[in-house]
């Protein structure tokens, strides 16, 4: 029987949740035995090559590219797991939601105290750069998410326990100490 297929993605966040995945220490050897990785920043596979059993999502949705790839993940993955504060709530990047996007960009590129005079007057709008959304959205506001793992980042134990439970088809029960928002 072929191994279950796992894919991961990183959107607007700090990559800390992927670091936490790698923080499972020597259990990473078990993981390699248990699953096969498809599209993921860990192996640098850029495109889905087969249907995926479990998709793991880190980060909030702040631009059109994030949204597009998240929808692609939903299409290819049987189960979608959002991990970490940014994917679940928008997290620290969503602090910009309290300020209109135009003001954010003007502060960063036109009026901010660290803007050098020769760079003034340019808000980047190259077609190759993803277009920022009005707000940073939690993943579940864009597509249906099946499971949520909180934490900033979720600990390696949280991710490991959840992954093993999902692979075995067992209910996902997190111990008290593993439910954290920070």
């Amino acid at each position, binding site marked *: 029987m072929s191994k279950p297929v796992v894919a991961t993605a990183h959107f607007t966040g700090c990559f800390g949740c992927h670091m936490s995945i790698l923080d499972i220490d020597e259990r990473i050897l078990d993981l390699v035995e248990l699953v096969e990785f498809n599209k993921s920043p860990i192996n640098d596979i850029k495109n889905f090559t087969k249907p995926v059993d479990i998709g793991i999502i880190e980060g909030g949705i702040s631009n059109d590219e994030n949204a597009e790839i998240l929808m692609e993940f939903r299409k290819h993955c049987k189960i979608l797991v959002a991990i970490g504060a940014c994917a679940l709530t928008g997290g*620290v990047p969503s602090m910009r939601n309290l300020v209109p996007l135009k003001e954010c960009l003007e502060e960063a590129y036109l009026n901010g105290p660290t803007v050098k005079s020769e760079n003034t007057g340019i808000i980047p709008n190259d077609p190759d750069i993803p277009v920022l959304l009005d707000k940073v959205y939690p993943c579940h506001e864009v597509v249906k998410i099946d499971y949520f793992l*909180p934490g900033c980042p979720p600990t390696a134990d949280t991710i490991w326990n959840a992954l093993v439970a999902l692979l075995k088809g067992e209910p996902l029960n997190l111990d*008290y100490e593993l439910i954290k928002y920070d």
Partner: protein
Amino acid sequence: MSMNVVTFTIDGVEVKSAPDKTILQAADDVGIYIPRLCYLKDLPPGGHCRVCTVKVNGRPVNACTYPVAEGIVVENNTEELHSLRRNIIEMLFVEGNHFCPSCEVAGKCELQALAYRLALLTPQMPYLYAQKELDATHPDVYLDRNRCVLCGRCVRASIYLDKKNVFGFENRGISMRISVNSNDGLKDTNLTKDDKSMSVCPTGCLVVKRQGFTIPVGKRPYDKKPIGSEIETKTVNS
């Protein structure tokens, strides 16, 4: 039957209490935790938050304001009530601007601790991202309304414990907010950082300056033990 003792049940457990107590006080006395947010021992109950809602003979009531009575049947630890409590906590999260990862009271925040205890993995209602005002005019303390849950503990503590009347509520409904009793912010009040009202905030709304992030992760009050364990581990003397 003695006139000085009433007997009733909470989730089928017989509880005896003095007749002048509320359900929440009587439960605390025998080591039964009823989740609560705006209630604080030593302050008159506010009855604002409804987190302590229990069922008395099948009807939902506030445990913090409802007096005990002979023979009442109280339900507390049921999935139905926990689900309602979870909804309240979730609404408080999405109505405020609570950025836990960067907040200095994470780990000792009662809102967060209730979410952990009730196993709320994440709020799923849409966030409001409402504009809230910060008052950092005072040299020693600040008021960050982004983190306010309108429990009114500071209002009551200032009146009843500090005898000062620094805080109040203004407006109604979704526009309701904590007001400061002065024309020019906290600096123009007689509030000091040692006031009782400064130590009662369940979240990081009312905070003493320059004291954040002093307790390491892992040693903060709710890192290992759920909120309410301090009540549940109390010796039962009924």
